[in-house]
């Protein structure tokens, strides 16, 4: 870690759940929902 007065666990970014998942390239349903087979077809 850079030697500085404070280590920022968020890297200075106020990321919501969906931002974190988007940055990871996850295209989950509504950003953070994992559908099983049946739901996937419905959706």
């Amino acid at each position, binding site marked *: *870690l*850079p*030697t*500085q*007065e*404070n*280590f*920022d*666990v*968020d890297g*200075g*970014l*106020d*990321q*919501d*759940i*969906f931002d*974190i*998942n*988007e940055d*990871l390239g*996850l*295209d*989950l*349903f*509504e*950003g*953070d*929902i*994992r*559908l*099983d087979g049946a*739901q996937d077809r*419905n*959706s």
Partner: protein
Amino acid sequence: IVGEYRWPHTIPYVLEDSLEMNAKGVILNAFERYRLKSCIDFKPWAGEANYISVFKGSGCWSSVGNRHVGKQQLSIGQNCDRIATVQHEFLHALGFWHEQSRSDRDDYVSIMWDRVMSGREHNFNTYNDQESDSLNVPYDYTSVMHYSKTAFQNGTEPTIVTRISDFMDVIGQRMDFSDSDLLKLNRLYNCTTSLSFMDSCSFELENVCGMIQSSDDNADWQWVSQVPRGPESDHSSMGQCKGSGFFMHFNSSSVSVGATALLESRTLYPKRGFQCLQFYLYNTGSENDQLNIYTREYPADNVVGTLTLVEEIKEIPIGSWQLYHVTLKMTKKFRVVFGGVRGAGASLGGLSIDDINLSETQCPHHIWHITNFTQLIGSPSGTLYSPPFYSPKGYAFQIHLNLSHSTNAGIYFHLISGANDDQLQWPCPWQQATMTLLDQNPDIRQRMSNQRSVTTDPLMTTDNGSYLWDRPSKVGEVAFFPNGTQFRRGQGSGTSVFITHKRLKSRDFIKGDDVYILLTVEDISHLNSTPVQPTPTSTVKDLCTNFTCENDGICIVQNGKAECRCQSGEDWWYMGERCEKRGSTRDTIVIAASSTVAMFALMLIVTLISVYCTRKKYRRRISSNTAAMTLENQHAF
């Protein structure tokens, strides 16, 4: 979600080893919020058919509802270790969709489709009321399940615009359950109680929450809305509401030194064996006036009860409401007793109490009380350091609150040099610091406190090669307390986006221009060890070492041969030499049904063929007889 997707009220879970240590502690803290505000509880998995497996996957995600698949995964990946994120993902698992996907959302928000990232429009679907049921609760802009205004935006303009503009910066809160979240959750699961809530009292009703005046004292507590020498108003509403705003007052100026006034709670029935009593106290009497906290315990055969002094609260600051916590360890029916005592010295007023909350939770270890707060927000002087505190393990620490930024408040945990450092382990191993900005709502169940945690990882190093959590006197900077005493402060760890100033000014975070930061530093090293595996005997070790069982199968040695014992549940099982195949009662039924149908079809075909052949044979015989008959007749003519 409509349908039978509920879990039992106590949900079996597994915290997989892949989880980060901080995440494990945060998840357990999130469970405590469910236990306080709903009837949902959690227990380590003990073989139940369905359970939630929390692991460190990529990102933060969950399924919606109990999918009845046995092991149901929920991912708390990197950067997901925030308590409200965990609450959000578990609400999905409990059966919640996102708030803005309700069938009636267009009455309350507008989706700006041209500002949505292309290909992400499906994230703004709505469900018809056959798939999603809002349980007769109005649309909730404050839900922890609501997207923020920036969700899936392709630029800088908001993708969601609330029809009531005041809610634009409310949606997307990730602090805690909203009241409506809890209303839906408690309706969905038919909750009537909660595991850890016991009582909350703001003295607004004349029955004073069933509290009673004791007869073993010299004076009574009075139910008042203001006292000439202060406080001018109660703590619950701070005098904002005419006709309400009551509290209890012990007028010490009217009694002699040493006189007491006892106020006893109603009888309470503990479940967990540990409690945290929280209340606000205001002193306008003598600086030697004190408040004693007792418990009156009722063992089975004792109707009078045994009075035990738990804590003496002395040196109560004059002229302002102060928050106090008292830890109790009651296991039998009991009352809490507030004992006001007149101290030596002049008194022109007395003691006042308000906003009592009792819950079977752990009290915070320390309270950082910040006064004259509002002026510090966004100000260059808004860089605050707390007084020094000691963790239960003896580590000295300090909190840094940075309000000087224009939009966000930052908060950091620092280890500092302390009296016990020679006896402590360095680098500091697995102490989880939890920092909570208290929402001072009178009722603990309605508080949406903002909380973040960091954990001291003893192996974490900075780029100059030193350990981040090493002894502050070795790696820290020189610093000074306000009284000029020099000490060493280690590098801080926390977040620059703890809370926005807008949210900080909302709700009851600031009350009477006072703010409270609750602090807990807990040793979570016990969460580090994977469950101790039975030490393998030599044969098991040799034969099973190179024999892998899939799908969590367990390798055993049977008759000198390595074999797999497969996992199974209520209606599913794994099979095969390596547990590679999955079976379920549903599959069996399908197989049985299809083989019955196949058998029936085969029988039908055989029957049809045999009928056809028989008829053909019969017809042939008839026609040959007829021919013979004709020949005979010819001769006959």
